[in-house]
């Protein structure tokens, strides 16, 4: 049985060339090391890319997109990967919540929310995890109760990336405590400027305030901001996580290919080409090539609607192995140069620990594959 894969035709090659030329002329250079300044530089970069017409390539024209296929998005992602700033700051909106709004959103929600995603005018974050609902997402306790034409939210979220920059939070809350854990949840689009929201930065291993705790103290959210229907938030959240994988993983894999090139160059410059070095590099490169091929299948499957349930967990696990193997190899092969002089190798090695944790730990991904792809029985069965 053959899986589908992305096909790049003349239109995509022309687009790639156009983007490459534009990036060569406009690449702003390496972003500032300091976190807040870096965030602002990334916002400015996305705004610039949008003005050039490169953001929202696959979105419908009526919502500010260009109505092209996902292969065009893949082209953008890969060309961006060659730039100094490969990451789109509002990628959560572009890759996850935009497509989810296009599927589940009302016309009013789409018209209000989609356009500012594209130019990074409104950054999005996502509120799923809680102190007692990490891997066990169905254990969410943050609640919303109906009060007139609003829902009133109380509770606490954690590990919310870019919360301090965000205009909107895609928030998963419990609206019916009497239903089984996966039911009775709703997905609210919450204005982060609402009264009653407190953002408390958490510092990750590199001492950057990359994510936050977010507290909700009787926050009023208009009922028109429910995405999908009340008590059916789990379906919306799962669909969103399905969207998340394709382009997000492609962006990561493109960045890893760029870092692989850096590593090869550093080793070549030092005249390191013995068998041990070459073989370690070869293993890493093979992982990266397989990862990229996997994402092409996933994107093609998304277009065709043939993606099997749980299949994107394969992508996440491949990404994790590729990322952790690459930076472990860099550290092992460069030795002192990685530990001291550093072209970001030790930071990347430390950051790679997060890949097997964020967006569902590797253990959870394996559970998903076991249940959804292999239909294995639950524990005790």
């Amino acid at each position, binding site marked *: 049985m053959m899986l589908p894969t992305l096909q790049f035709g003349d239109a995509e090659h022309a687009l790639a060339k156009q983007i490459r030329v534009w990036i060569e002329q406009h690449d702003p250079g390496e972003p500032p090391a300091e976190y807040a300044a870096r965030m602002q530089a990334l916002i400015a970069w996305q705004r610039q890319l949008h003005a050039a017409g490169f953001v929202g390539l696959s979105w419908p024209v009526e919502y500010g997109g260009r109505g092209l296929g996902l292969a065009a998005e893949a082209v953008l992602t890969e060309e961006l990967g060659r730039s100094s700033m490969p990451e789109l700051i509002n990628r959560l909106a572009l890759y996850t919540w935009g497509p989810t709004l296009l599927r589940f959103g009302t016309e009013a929600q789409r018209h209000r929310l989609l356009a500012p995603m594209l130019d990074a005018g409104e950054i999005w974050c996502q509120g799923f995890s809680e102190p007692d609902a990490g891997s066990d997402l169905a254990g969410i306790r943050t609640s919303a109760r109906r009060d007139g034409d609003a829902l009133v939210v109380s509770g606490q979220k954690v590990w919310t990336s870019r919360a301090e920059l965000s205009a909107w939070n895609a928030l998963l809350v419990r609206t019916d405590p009497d239903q089984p854990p996966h039911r009775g949840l709703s997905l609210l689009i919450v204005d982060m400027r609402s009264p009653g929201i407190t953002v408390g930065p958490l510092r990750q291993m590199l001492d950057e305030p990359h994510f936050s705790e977010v507290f909700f103290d009787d926050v009023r959210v208009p009922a028109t901001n429910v995405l999908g229907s009340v008590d059916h938030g789990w379906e919306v959240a799962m669909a969103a996580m399905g969207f998340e994988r394709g382009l997000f993983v492609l962006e990561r894999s493109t960045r890893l290919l760029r870092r692989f090139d850096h590593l090869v160059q550093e080793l070549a410059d030092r005249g390191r080409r013995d068998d041990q070095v070459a073989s370690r590099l070869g*293993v890493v490169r093979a992982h990266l090539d397989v990862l990229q091929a996997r994402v*092409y299948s996933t994107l093609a499957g998304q277009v065709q609607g043939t993606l099997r349930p749980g299949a994107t967990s394969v992508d996440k696990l491949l990404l994790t192995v590729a990322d952790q193997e690459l930076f472990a190899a860099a550290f092992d092969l460069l030795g002192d140069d990685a530990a001291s002089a550093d072209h970001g190798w030790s930071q990347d090695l430390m950051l790679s620990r997060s890949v097997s944790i964020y967006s569902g730990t590797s253990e959870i991904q394996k559970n998903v594959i076991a249940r959804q792809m*292999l239909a294995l029985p639950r524990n005790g069965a």
Partner: protein
Amino acid sequence: MTVAADLGDELAAVFDGVLSGTLPQAALLEAAREDRHPTTAYHQAMADVGFFGLRLGTEDGGLDAGGGTLVSLFEVAGARLLPSASHEEALGLAPLLAAAARHGDHDAASWLAQLQAGHLRGGGRTFTPRLDMSASLRTASGDGALVSLDGVWAWLGPDARLAHVATPSWAVVVDLDDAGVRVERHAGAVDPGQGLCRLHARDIAVPSSRLVVGAGASRLVLDWQLAAFAEILGCGAHLLAATVSYAVERRQFGQRIASFQAIAHRLADMTVSVEAVRSALARLVTIAESGPAAAEPLAASLRYWVPSAIRTVCEGAIQVHGGLGFTWEAGLHLHYRRVLQLQAAMGGAFTAATEVGRMYLDRAAEASHV
């Protein structure tokens, strides 16, 4: 121009039916134990459904199968453990004989017809890029070339009359009746019953009709790799499915063992490998349409990745089956053996990975000097 993808699936179902009917596990185990070819009717049955014309154009009475079809069919070949000589006959020998026939080589035309009809056996060896080769070619003055075979490992069918040797830059058909060729039967292969031999020859003359150089040769090598990767995939996918079924049925401690997370996670890891290989082959088929040179970087990575990942799948299958998995009768070793044999044929994991790394290091060194 080529068989459409859906037709590829249809053909794959036909091949699966033929092989499951003619190569039962008991016959495979017996052949492996005695290190001889299976004596069932599989070969004639495969010839009857056109297998040996797989890569021939319709004008040669072939199926004109494209890369996608090749992958679908050889996944079946792996799952059903089609003997290795058949692989060589269909993808190496038959296309070379067809090329020779087009150059007016009447013997080759006659051999091709017999091969397609299932009446003539052959085999051979295909070298993937950057392997140390035990074969060499000297272009003779005039017509043809002189070929030396220094103990080339090859798979030959029973009473093989012909063998091909294909490398990324040249490929030849060798007449095994040639007095200058010595075939040394080899016992004790990791994948027994496949007719593993060593071929010896010193400067034997091969007519130009039976010699292909350049792009034609590298295309043969790429096709062989597509098929070999798919065969390895077929072995892994087959064992994964068998292991999932076993783990769901088998009870210990009063539970289905598949419900234990240690087992479930191992099966999930195996699934990741099988699914990733499927995606990688879809990508390779697409790139292969642009030719062997364009496909080589990915193919090189896959020569490391595909056998390594699927070998681990086979090892997981044996582990999850417990003591049963280690027995001769359960037969899991048959697929494991095929994967090991193909991994070795691609140079082994270390060499395959080293060559990938060297390719990128060389490229970076060149870039620095420009």
